[in-house]
C-alpha cells in the first residue's frame, strides 16, 4: 500500500501478532499495514479487542510475554524495529519512538517526585549530566504547559490532577525529542475540558517539533477533530484507511458506516440509532471469511467464506470489504416519536434543596472538622415518561446525587418527594423500604454490578422477593421470562452466570433487575460509558423503547453530551455540587447561557465539521469540593469573571419557563 516508503517515518506491513494460549495460538492482529509520514497524526480507531493497542505495543517491544509477532515488518527510519535485537530496540523505543499511556494515575511512581522521574528518563536515555538535567526537566515541564514548573518538579504524582499527570507523561515522552509519539487512549481517563487541553497540547507539539503522532483511540469524534488520517480496526484487522475527511464524509466499509451512524447526536433524535447487532468478537472466536460478516447487514455467502483483500478505492483510501459500494439499509424512524404535549398531572420525582455533605473527621476522637459538599443544594423535577440528563465532569457530584436518591449516600438536607406525596428524606429505613422500588439505579460498570456467584435468575428475583412477597414461584418465573425477553436476552439466560455474558448483555441484565420491581424512575449512572460504541447504541435504543412502553422516567447521569442530546428532553448541568444551568435539551445545546456549559459544549468533540465552532478552552481543573472557591464556584476558570463573582453566589436567572442558569453575567 505505501508506494514511497522513503517518505514515511514508519511503515508497518503485514503485521501479524498472536497470543499463545496453551498449545493453540490466537491471532490478535491480522495483516495490519499502515504508514505514518513525519509530522502526521494517524489515528488507529477501533472498539475493544480490535488489536489497536497490541499493534502499538509491538512497535516498542512491549508485548506481553505470551504474545508473539508472527509476521510482518515495521520500518522506522529504514530499520525494521520488529527484527532488531532487544538492545538496539531499546535505543529506539522510548527515544525515537515514545509512548503515552491511558492511565496517568498508574503510569507514574507514587513515591518519587515527578522531577526525579523525568530526570531518570534523561539520565537513562540521554546521559545528561546532573546540572543540565535539572534545567531540562523545567524546560520540558514548561513545554507541556505546566505552571510553576520549578515548583511542580518537586511535587509527588498524587499532588497533581489527572490532566497534570498526563502532561507530565507527555513531558517524559518528549524528553528524547522523539520523531514518533504513540498516544494510547491519552485522554480516555480525563474530563472533556481537560481532554481538549491535552489534545491542543499534542497538536502544538506536533506543529512545533514535527513529531508524528500515532493516536490510538475508540473515540471517533475525537479523531474527526484531530487526526490527518485514520485507520479503522475491527477484530484484529485494519478494515479501512483514509484521510480524515474522506473517512467521515465517504465511509466505505459497512462497519465504519454503521459505526458512524451508531454514535448518538442531536441529528438522530427521534430516530433509532443504527446499532450493530451482536458484540465485538473475542480474538479466540473462529470466524471464517470476513470477521465482520456475522454482524454485517449486507453480508453475502461470499463474505462468510472468503476474507476480503485490502484494496484501494481511491488514492489514500483503502478498504477491506467485498461490498464497499453497496448502500446500507436506511435508519429506522422511531415509531413512538409523537408524544402528548400536555404534561402529566404530578411529577414522579421532585427534588428540592438536596444536599449531600460528607463529614471530614480528624484527630483521635474523629471530630468533624469540615464537610465535603459533594452535592450542595440541587433542585429538579422529573415527570413520568421523560428523560432528564444530569451532565458534568468527574467530581461535580452527579453520581453522588443519583446515589442519594436511591439511599446509597447520606442526605444532609432537602426533600425528595415521590409521586407528589411522600418525602423520602427523614423516613425511617424500614418505612423507606416500600419506596425503594420506585427509584431504581443502573450502574456504570457492567462487570461489577452483577454478583458473580448468583445466576441471572437469582439476581433478578432478589428485588421481587422483597417487594412482591406474595408472588408464587411460578408467577415469579413467568414474570422473569417476560422481563428477560423485554430486554432482549434469550430465555435460557436466567439459569446462567454473569461471566457468560458480554458487557452489553450484562447492562441489559442490570436493566431487567431494576424493571423487576416496577420502578417509576430509573437512574442511569453512566450506564453506557463502559460499552463499545456499537453496543452503546443497542442499549440506548432499548432504553428508549422501554420508556415508551412502560412510561419510565430516566435520570440520565453522564458526561457524554452526544448521548444527552440524543436521549434527553431536559438537561441539568452540574459544577461542583450545584446545578449551573437547566433547560430543554435544544435550549441548552444551541444557546448555552452559563460560561461553563458553553465551554463544555465547545470542548466535547463531535462528528460534525469542527471548523465553525468557537475554540473555547477552560484553563485548569475542576477544584476540589473540600475547599470550593468562594462566591460562584466557577469563577477561577471563568473568562468573564468579575469581582462580584468572587464574593457573591450568583442568582438564578430565567430565560424561558424552562431555561434557567445561575450566573452573574449569563452569556447571550
Amino acid at each position, binding site marked *: 500500500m505505501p508506494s514511497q516508503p522513503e517518505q514515511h517515518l514508519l511503515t508497518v506491513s503485514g503485521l501479524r501478532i498472536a497470543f499463545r494460549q496453551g498449545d493453540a495460538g490466537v491471532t490478535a492482529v491480522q495483516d495490519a499495514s499502515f504508514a505514518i509520514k513525519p509530522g502526521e497524526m494517524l489515528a488507529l480507531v477501533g472498539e475493544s479487542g480490535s488489536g489497536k493497542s497490541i499493534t502499538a505495543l509491538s512497535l516498542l517491544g512491549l508485548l506481553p510475554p505470551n504474545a508473539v509477532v508472527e509476521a510482518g515488518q515495521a520500518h522506522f527510519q529504514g530499520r525494521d524495529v520488529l527484527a532488531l535485537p532487544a538492545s538496539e530496540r531499546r535505543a529506539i523505543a522510548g527515544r525515537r519512538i515514545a509512548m503515552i499511556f491511558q492511565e496517568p494515575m498508574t503510569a507514574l511512581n507514587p513515591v518519587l517526585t515527578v522531577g526525579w522521574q523525568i530526570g531518570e528518563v534523561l539520565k537513562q536515555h540521554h546521559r545528561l549530566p546532573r546540572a543540565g538535567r535539572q534545567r531540562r526537566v523545567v524546560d520540558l515541564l514548561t513545554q507541556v504547559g505546566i505552571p510553576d514548573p520549578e515548583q511542580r518538579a518537586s511535587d509527588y504524582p498524587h499532588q497533581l490532577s489527572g490532566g497534570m499527570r498526563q502532561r507530565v507523561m507527555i513531558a517524559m515522552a518528549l524528553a528524547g525529542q522523539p520523531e514518533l509519539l504513540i498516544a494510547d487512549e491519552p485522554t480516555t481517563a480525563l474530563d472533556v475540558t481537560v481532554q481538549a487541553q491535552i489534545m491542543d497540547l499534542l497538536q502544538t507539539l506536533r506543529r512545533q517539533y514535527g513529531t508524528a503522532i500515532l493516536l490510538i483511540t475508540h473515540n471517533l469524534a475525537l479523531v474527526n477533530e484531530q487526526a490527518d488520517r485514520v485507520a479503522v480496526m475491527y477484530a484484529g484487522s485494519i478494515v479501512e484507511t483514509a484521510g480524515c475527511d474522506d473517512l467521515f464524509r465517504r465511509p466505505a466499509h459497512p462497519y465504519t458506516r454503521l459505526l458512524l451512524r451508531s454514535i448518538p447526536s442531536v441529528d438522530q433524535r427521534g430516530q433509532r440509532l443504527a446499532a450493530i447487532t451482536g458484540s465485538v468478537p473475542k480474538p479466540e472466536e473462529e470466524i471464517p471469511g470476513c470477521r465482520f460478516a456475522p454482524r454485517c447487514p449486507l453480508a453475502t455467502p461470499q463474505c462468510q467464506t472468503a476474507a476480503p483483500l485490502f484494496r484501494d478505492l481511491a488514492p489514500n483510501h483503502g478498504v477491506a470489504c467485498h461490498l464497499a459500494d453497496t448502500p446500507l439499509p436506511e435508519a429506522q424512524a422511531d415509531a413512538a416519536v409523537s408524544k402528548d404535549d400536555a404534561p402529566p398531572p404530578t411529577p414522579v420525582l421532585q427534588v428540592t434543596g438536596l444536599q449531600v455533605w460528607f463529614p471530614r473527621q480528624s484527630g483521635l476522637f474523629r471530630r468533624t472538622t469540615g464537610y465535603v459538599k459533594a452535592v450542595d443544594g440541587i433542585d429538579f423535577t422529573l415527570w413520568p415518561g421523560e428523560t432528564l440528563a444530569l451532565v458534568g465532569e468527574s467530581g461535580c457530584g452527579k453520581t453522588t446525587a443519583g446515589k442519594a436518591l436511591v439511599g446509597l449516600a447520606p442526605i444532609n438536607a432537602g426533600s425528595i418527594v415521590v409521586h407528589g406525596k411522600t418525602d423520602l428524606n427523614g423516613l425511617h429505613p424500614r418505612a423507606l423500604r416500600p419506596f425503594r422500588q420506585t427509584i431504581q439505579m443502573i450502574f456504570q460498570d457492567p462487570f*461489577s*454490578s452483577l454478583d458473580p456467584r*448468583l445466576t441471572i435468575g437469582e439476581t433478578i428475583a432478589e428485588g421481587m422477593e422483597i417487594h412482591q412477597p406474595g408472588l408464587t414461584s411460578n408467577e415469579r418465573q413467568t414474570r422473569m421470562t417476560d422481563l428477560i425477553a423485554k430486554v432482549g436476552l434469550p430465555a435460557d439466560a436466567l439459569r446462567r452466570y454473569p461471566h457468560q455474558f458480554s458487557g452489553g448483555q450484562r447492562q441489559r441484565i442490570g436493566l431487567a433487575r431494576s424493571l423487576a420491581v416496577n420502578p417509576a424512575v430509573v437512574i442511569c449512572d453512566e450506564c453506557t460509558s463502559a460499552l463499545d460504541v456499537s453496543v452503546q447504541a443497542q442499549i440506548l435504543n432499548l432504553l428508549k423503547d422501554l420508556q415508551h412502553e412502560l412510561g419510565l422516567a430516566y435520570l440520565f447521569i453522564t458526561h457524554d453530551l452526544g448521548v444527552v442530546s440524543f436521549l434527553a428532553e431536559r438537561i441539568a448541568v452540574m459544577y461542583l455540587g450545584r446545578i449551573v444551568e437547566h433547560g430543554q435539551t435544544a435550549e441548552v445545546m444551541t444557546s448555552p447561557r452559563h460560561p461553563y456549559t458553553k465551554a463544555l459544549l465547545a470542548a466535547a468533540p463531535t462528528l460534525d465539521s469542527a471548523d465553525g465552532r468557537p475554540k473555547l478552552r477552560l484553563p485548569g481543573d475542576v477544584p476540589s469540593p473540600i475547599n470550593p472557591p468562594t462566591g460562584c464556584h466557577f469563577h477561577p476558570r471563568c473568562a468573564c469573571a468579575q469581582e462580584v463573582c468572587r464574593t457573591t453566589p450568583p442568582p438564578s436567572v430565567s430565560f424561558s419557563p424552562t431555561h434557567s442558569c445561575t450566573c452573574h453575567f449569563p452569556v447571550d
Partner: protein
Amino acid sequence: MPATLFQSWWFQNLFTLSLLAGAALLAWRLSRREYWRNAFHEICRNRLAVISFVILCGYGAIAVLDSIGWRRPLRHPETGEIARHPETGKVILDQGASALDYLLAPISAKREKTYSAPLATTDYTPTTAMSPTGQPQRVHAPLAYPRSHLLGTDRIGQDVFCQACKSIRTGIIIGLLTTILAVPFALIFGTAAGYYGGWIDDATQYVCTVLSSIPTVLFIAAFMIIFGQGLPQLALAMGIASWTGLCRLLRGETIRLRETDFVLAAKAMGVPSWRIILRHIVPNVLHLILITTVIRFSSEVLAEAAFTYLGIGVGADTMSWGAMINDARTELTREPIIWWKLAAAFTFMVGLVLPANLFGDAVRDALDPRLR
C-alpha cells in the same frame, strides 16, 4: 461424667459419622452449583492436585478408621473363652480399640525388646552374650520378628510405623478442629465488622488486636495449664489464637465488596443488611475461607508438633508426631544414632503437609475467575 462421655466409643463414632455426613452433604450441595463444578473440573485437570487429593484421602481414611472403634468381649488369654461376670453372667467388655488398632494389631503385637533399625534382622545395639566357647562377646541378638518392622522399633520395642499411623489422627483432628472452631468466629465477626463498620468494627478490631498481641505459645501454655492437656483443649486453644488473622482478611474483603455495584444495587433495592451479607458477601468470601483453611491446616499440623515438643501439646497418652520428635531428641544424641523415629515423624508430616499445600494452591487457582 462428661469426660467419659467424650471418651466413650459411641460418642466418638457418632461424632465422626456426623462429620463425614456433613462433609458429604456439603460436597453434594456444592456439586450442584456450576461455579463449584467448574472449579472441580479445573482441579481434575491438574495432575499434581489429583495426586495430592488421593494422598490426602488416604490420610483422611486412616484418621477416620482411627476414630471409630468398638469394645470387644474380654477373652481368657489362654483358653480364648469369653469372660463373663461371675454373678450376672454378663459378657465383660475390654477397653475397646479403634478400627485402625485392630488393623494394625498383627504388626503392633510383634514387640521387640528394644531398638531395631527398619527391616533389620538383629538388634541395633549389641548385647553381651556367651559364645558357645564360653567367652563373653558383643553380639547383635536376632530379633523376635525379623524383617517385619518397616520403620524399625523404639526404645521399648514398639513398632514405629504403628506409632506414626496412630499420630495421623492427632494431626488431622488438630488441623480440622482448630479450623472448624476458628472459621465461624472469623466469618461472623469479619463480615459484620467489614459491612457495618462503626462501633462493631472498632470492637472487633480491639478484640483481634488484643488476642494477636499475646504470644501464641504463652497463650496456649496458659490455656493448657488451666484446662489440662488434651486433644480438644489444644484444638480449642489454637482455634482461639488463630481466628484473628482470617477475621482481618475477611473484614478487608467485605469492605471491598461493600462498595461494589452489586451490593449497592441490592441496597438500593431495599434488601435488608443481614440478607445482603448472607447472599452477596458470604458467597464471595467463601473461596478465601477455603483457601486459608487448606493452607492453615498444614501449619496447624506443624504447630501441634511444635507445641507437643515444647511439652504444652497433647498429653503423653496421645501419640503424635510432636511426641515422636520429642522422643527422638534424646535418641539423636546416642552413638550409633537412632534416626528412624525422627525420620518417620518427618516423612509422615511432609506426606500430609505437602499435598495439603499443593492441593490448597490448586483450589485457589481453580476458584480465581481471573485464572480460568
